């Protein structure tokens, strides 16, 4: 056999071996057995690689506008339903306030439609499907007691009690406290405390399933409350670390042609699909300057560029390899090489998003290390 054919054969067997290894590791044999049975009964066979369904779709474009379209209005729940949902939720958390004004509003940047709702003490927001989003009650609604000071140990305990009280679902034990901050340098002088909880899966945090609570100590008056509820798909890891680095590096070499790669690193994390790589690939210079779709007018106001194109992707939350690529370029500091983080889907190997500087894991490390976060200090 010619050495060329022999090399290609080796590569083919190596690919097959890697697929077999991935299947062994992840008990995909079950799927293969089903496929084989179907082959026996129906004559339909599945190629090994076709078992894994791709998830990334080409991003769709949307119009950047604050104006509600007829379609937006039709897709959102009605005013009556929004009012009922809001009242129901207020009662659930022990507030007797009456719902007052309701406004359907469009967030142009996120291309999302939300209901802004006023009630006796404050305001709240629910999404177009009627799911609770956030709530704020200004502190002027409360008579702050003279002895409001509490210790951080007490704050930790109360934060967990408030989580159980305000979490609309019966799954508070699935959340973990990741941040505890206060509005003063000293524990005893703080009259507002803030706690952030993230959901945790097998040692990995999903920051897109979070509950944040702000409260007035001693009287435990609710000051702010917000939820994010993007469900983690708990997808299996079939892609190896080396393959993830290879996929990200190959992509990056096509996008970043100005600087050389000096090193790469990768770790597993949970991240949401986003359009960062799409915009970066389109125009890396403007992406880095933050001017890909916007520019500053002569009056200093931010304007949309004439050739602006806005992309949207599904809000899927997946297990990914967060592959950080470091370049031989130091824009800010000699100890801080420029970098980009790619999110390589751990099951399909597709690049489903990215981040200019940090993946979720590093963001979380920074959150814990933040001197204002007294969770472990």
């Amino acid at each position, binding site marked *: 056999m010619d050495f060329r054919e022999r090399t290609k054969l*080796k590569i083919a067997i190596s690919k097959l071996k890697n697929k077999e290894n991935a299947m062994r590791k992840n008990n995909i044999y079950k799927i293969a057995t089903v496929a084989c049975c179907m082959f026996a009964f129906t004559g339909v066979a599945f190629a090994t690689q076709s078992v894994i369904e791709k998830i990334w779709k080409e991003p769709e474009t949307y119009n950047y506008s604050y104006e509600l379209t007829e379609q937006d209005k039709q897709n959102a729940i009605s005013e009556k339903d929004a009012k009922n949902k809001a009242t129901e939720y207020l009662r659930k958390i022990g507030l007797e306030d009456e719902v007052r004004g309701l406004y359907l509003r469009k967030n142009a940047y996120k291309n999302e439609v939300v209901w802004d709702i006023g009630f006796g003490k404050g305001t709240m927001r629910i999404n177009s499907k009627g799911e609770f989003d956030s709530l704020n009650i200004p502190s002027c609604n409360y008579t702050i007691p003279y002895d409001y000071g509490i210790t951080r140990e007490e704050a930790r305990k109360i934060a967990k009690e408030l989580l159980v009280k305000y979490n609309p679902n019966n799954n508070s034990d699935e959340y973990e406290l990741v941040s505890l901050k206060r509005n003063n340098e000293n524990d005893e002088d703080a009259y507002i405390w803030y706690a952030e909880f993230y959901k945790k899966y097998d040692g990995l945090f999903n920051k897109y399933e979070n509950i944040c609570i702000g409260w007035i100590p001693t009287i435990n008056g609710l000051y702010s409350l917000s939820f994010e509820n993007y469900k983690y798909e708990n997808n299996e890891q079939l892609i190896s670390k080396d393959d993830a680095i290879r996929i990200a590096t190959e992509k990056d070499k096509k996008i970043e042609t100005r600087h050389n790669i000096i090193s790469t690193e990768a770790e597993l994390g949970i991240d949401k699909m986003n359009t960062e790589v799409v915009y970066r690939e389109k125009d890396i210079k403007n992406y880095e300057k933050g001017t890909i779709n916007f520019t500053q007018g002569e009056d200093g106001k931010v304007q949309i560029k004439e050739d602006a194109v806005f992309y949207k992707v599904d809000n899927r939350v997946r297990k990914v390899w967060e592959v950080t690529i470091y370049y031989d370029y130091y824009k800010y500091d000699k100890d801080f090489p420029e970098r980009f983080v790619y999110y390589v889907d751990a099951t399909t190997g597709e690049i489903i998003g990215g981040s200019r500087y940090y993946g979720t894991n590093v963001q979380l490390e920074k959150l814990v290390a933040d001197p204002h976060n007294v969770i472990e200090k």
Partner: protein
Amino acid sequence: MSQTKHLIYEYQNNNELDLDRIMNDFEPYIRTIINNMAMNTLNYEDKEEILSDAFFILWKNQCKIQTSVESYIAGVTRILVKERLRKRKITYDLTECENIASDFEIMKNDISENEFIVQCINGLKEIDIKIITMFYYYSKTTKEISKELKISEINVRTKLFRIRNKIRKELNS
């Protein structure tokens, strides 16, 4: 081959390494290294195997290559020749390749994977070799393979199924 150094990404096209172009550009260079090191101590089959091993390892590590393709493939080839000579119990002057010991440690996994693959290849029929290359290297469908090889699609699938089983057995052993 020109005197200009080549970087690996120059050979990448649509996320794939253009192996044919790499082989065209570097075959004479690698043959020269092999011949200079092995002289008449290795036979033709050994030299051909080293040539194919070198390209396979280059493909395998394409994302990790930080130097030029020339430097990388020359280093890999030297290690492979040395390894082959060691297996044939032929002594070789180590001063010719001073860094080989540490480089060999880095490439240990690649060499053992290559050995595993060679083991798998032994015992494959010619038709199996064609099918596996067409399916896994060229990403052809079973329908396309059946047309090209003039055998039924069911036959192609059955053969693929058997090949996978064989690899699985090798992995388990």
